[in-house]
């Protein structure tokens, strides 16, 4: 179950990782069990599975926001903790998590400020990021003045502002309506194509995973395991992609993989 894009460098490497919450207590949860996964640099990988199968936990392990009970997580050739301290990744969550007392620009500048960037550089970079997510005219607005989709775009701009090589996203469009969602998916692919980041994207929407990713990792719950690793060689996505037969075939393949888990137990 290791990386299939052989030849390119590995951005994230997860070896025999397990995660148990509340070990030894009555409420013990085996969130992840024997996870092995290599994600190659520059790729777009989705994690999909039913709620509670450990997708967020796996992502948080990559971010070193939590630590494995067993096994090891390596990011850019170093420990996940070191990668966090080196600011190797940017994160976006389901809720945009924007600071309501900061304007859009100030929110994007937050990580840059923490990292000691000069004021002029911060401003220039924030403008650049606003162009990227197409929100330039909202620079001085406050988050609550923006729609949910716009807030998510700001959150993505914030996550990319300091040029991390890795972008970790946990159901970033989960709270958006279907139309905004499809629009955001196109935007994210566009950003990915232009920046060449490695993206790990958690979702529970099958079409979303298939449309976005080069690779879909299917997970099953209790304990969280990887049950399928599906390549999605659909080439450059466009408006027609969603209506193509190969897209439907892949959607079906992922759906089958998810269903098979249930049948298996």
């Amino acid at each position: 179950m290791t990386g299939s894009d052989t030849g390119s460098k590995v951005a994230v490497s997860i070896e025999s990782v397990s995660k148990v919450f509340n070990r030894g207590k009555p409420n013990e949860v085996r969130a992840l069990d024997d996870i092995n996964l290599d994600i190659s640099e520059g790729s777009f990988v989705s994690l999909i599975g039913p709620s509670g199968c450990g997708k967020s936990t796996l992502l948080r392990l990559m971010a070193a926001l939590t630590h494995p009970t067993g096994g090891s997580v390596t990011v850019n050739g170093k420990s996940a903790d070191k990668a966090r301290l080196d600011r190797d990744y940017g994160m976006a969550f389901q809720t945009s998590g924007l600071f309501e007392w900061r304007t859009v620009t100030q929110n994007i500048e937050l990580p840059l400020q923490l990292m000691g960037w000069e004021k002029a550089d911060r401003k220039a970079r924030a403008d650049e990021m606003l162009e990227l997510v197409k929100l330039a005219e909202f620079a001085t607005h406050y988050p609550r003045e923006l729609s949910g989709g716009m807030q998510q775009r700001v959150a993505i701009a914030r996550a990319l502002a300091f040029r991390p090589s890795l972008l970790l996203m946990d159901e970033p469009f989960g709270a958006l309506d279907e139309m905004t969602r499809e629009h955001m998916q196109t935007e994210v692919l566009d950003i990915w194509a232009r920046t060449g980041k490695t993206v790990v994207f958690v979702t529970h929407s099958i079409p979303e995973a298939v449309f976005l990713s080069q690779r879909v990792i299917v997970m099953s719950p209790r304990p969280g395991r990887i049950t399928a690793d599906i390549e999605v060689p659909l080439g450059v996505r466009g408006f027609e992609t969603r209506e193509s037969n190969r897209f439907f075939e892949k959607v079906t393949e992922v759906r089958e993989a998810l269903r098979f888990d249930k049948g298996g137990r």
Partner: protein
Amino acid sequence: MTTREETNRAIARHERNAAARRGVRRVAVFLVFLVVLSILYTGYKAFGSAVDDAQTDLPVVGRILPRTDDLTMPPLLDIAVEFGQPPQRNSSKPLGAFIGEAALFTLREAAFGFLLGAVLGLGLAIFMLRKKWFERGLSPYLVASQTVPLVAIAPIIVIWGSKSLGWLPFTWEPWMSVSIIATYLTFFPVAMNGIKGLQSADAAAMELMRSYAATRRQTLLKLQLPASMPYLFAAFKLAATVAIVGAIVGEISGGVRGGLGRLILDYASRYTTGPPRLYASVVGAAVLGILAVGVVTLLEYVAVTRRQAARGAR
């Protein structure tokens, strides 16, 4: 693009107007209440006098409800006029000037006490945030400190201040002791709301700061403190009134002259020779409290509300 900017400008203008309208409405409501209260006071007094004049000996007014004679309830006009009169025959200034000076004196005590208390309270909150054991261990003492009667500790603080602070580079004035009393009352709500506010920062936001490898100090300054502002300002408003009450009571029980406390004590002890004087000085104290809360509210508007106010629905 320009239309968007124009829209924004229009929205901003609309927002400013709305804020101004809210301010005007607030003042209007305040004035209406003032009129209603005056009418109630005067009306009750008129009713009581009528009953009394008619010699009906109704067993309500004067037995259960307060008497309405001029000694108990001086006419409002007398109280208003009193501000312009000298409080004693040989006084050089009108009563209003005496009350104003005393109010400024008390305000100085309260303001210094408030500032020191706010700083101490916030510092304590930050310390409690970092050291959970400290919060658990100290909380009972903090609560206990606020249940000790002020009249008991005020003289202790004043005596202690005048006797044992000779080593300071400046002379310790009695009013400074009163400030300490105000501090003593101020730090408590600030510390309690402060810790609640600092902990109110969203868990996801805390995690975001961790993902940036932010230091504890950065997390405090960029996230926890801004998140605590609504809580802190609620505490500041309470603390502002408490500081003034504390200063007045502190002056009285500590025997410090120059402020409203002493003035109120004086006019209370010579009440029969001029009831409106006491009423006038109480009005002075009330106005001082309203002003103090008003200043804090204005600061809150500048620091929090104005920046966070939604620019109306789009």
